[in-house]
């Protein structure tokens, strides 16, 4: 099981707590994790990635294992600790605006 932590507004939208556990088939990558997340919580579609381009929304960042993975290619494997469910995949809203 992969652990994904969501920002507060998306927790409210999906009606979940801070962390959700999802099953990911095949290699654990940004794309496969987000695909599985959106399949389980369809209301999140379009809020993390653009509907059409599937690119990360500009004011969101992806972190895991104390690394910023936001600019990694979406099909790059995520760290082993994430794939093993020992560390969460963090989706974080940028601190911007007011």
């Amino acid at each position, binding site marked *: 099981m992969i652990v994904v932590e969501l920002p507060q507004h998306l927790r409210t939208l999906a009606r979940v707590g801070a962390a959700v556990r999802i099953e990911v088939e095949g290699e654990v990558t940004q794309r496969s994790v987000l695909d599985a997340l959106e399949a389980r919580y369809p*209301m999140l579609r379009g809020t993390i990635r653009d509907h059409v381009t599937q690119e990360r*929304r500009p004011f969101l960042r992806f972190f895991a294992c104390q690394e910023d993975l936001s600019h990694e290619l979406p099909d790059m494997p995520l760290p082993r600790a994430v794939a093993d469910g020992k560390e969460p995949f963090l989706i974080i*809203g940028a601190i911007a605006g007011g």
Partner: protein
Amino acid sequence: MSKVRVLVGTRKGAFILTSDGKRQKWDVNGPHFAGWEIYHLKGSPLDPDRLYASQSSGWFGQLIQRSSDGGKTWEPVGNKFVYDGVPGTHQWYDGTPHPWEFKRVWHLEPSLTEAETVYAGVEDAAMFRSTDAGQTWEELSGLRKHGSGPHWTPGAGGMGLHTILIDPGNPRRMFIAISAAGVFRTEDAGKTWQPINQGLRSEHIPDPTAEVGHCVHRIAMHPSRPNVLFMQKHWDVMRSDNAGDSWREVSGNLPTDFGFPIDVHAHEPETIYVVPIKSDSEHFPIAGKLQVYRSRTGGNEWEALTKGLPQSNCYVNVLRDAMAVDSLDSCGVYFGTTGGQVYASADAGDSWAPIVHDLPAVMSVEVQTLP
């Protein structure tokens, strides 16, 4: 006894204000979608408990929420707004071509005749339709592709399609308005469109009488007279008596003809309301006095309505979608301000009182008159 439900969209959530027909005591419910920008909420005229809300955020994009119980509970529905075909370009502020990019939904307009149909006006300007109560959306691309689209430019607040009026006698005829392109009309339910801006004059654009390019802030009609349209343009209050084929100015004795909202009395088609704002560089009332102006003659002759409104040190704005009327007798008039006040008049504007005065900046106000 009848009831009134006021739907308020703000910069930080939605609020629902309810009262009985006297409109003196109000219940305030909210915030719904706390922390999100709510550009607009509106109820279906066919099923008043069916509400739609446009919820958006710079971080998470656009959501559409739907309620089937008058706003007690909500569910997110479809938020996939994809332009038809290759979107192409419109004109940017500096005159260069700029790609069409979806940003947000400014206005939601449920159909008058089909319970599951709702229209959405979006930024960058386009019109979308859902025939499954908001689950899926398709662009009515005849508007964006009718020919003048590459010449449309954003207003200061973006290039939004902000007004959708449906002719009650002929739902295939609709009027929409875009900042800063102008007004357009369809006679075939959105398949084809024509610009209807003849008579508008905008000194701040290269050709002041151009077919498109006018910064129309809002248009309004009375349901009994769909050929008569009223407009608050960037500057100028305008009127058309031929469904937009031509317009004439009716600013008359207004102290300033800049402003955003315009609306029509529920029972008197010649009684209209505007909120004069000092100028396009000073978005607040003249001399700090918040005044609604009413014309009982369809324009030209205006009277200031001030009873109950702040007459000193008031420097708020009233945005284009932030005024509405109920259909009780006498007609109730409502508007919200960027200072977070929602004012109500239960006597057609003669006197006003705040329902609430400390909400986030108000972006939209709609009213439902319920049995």
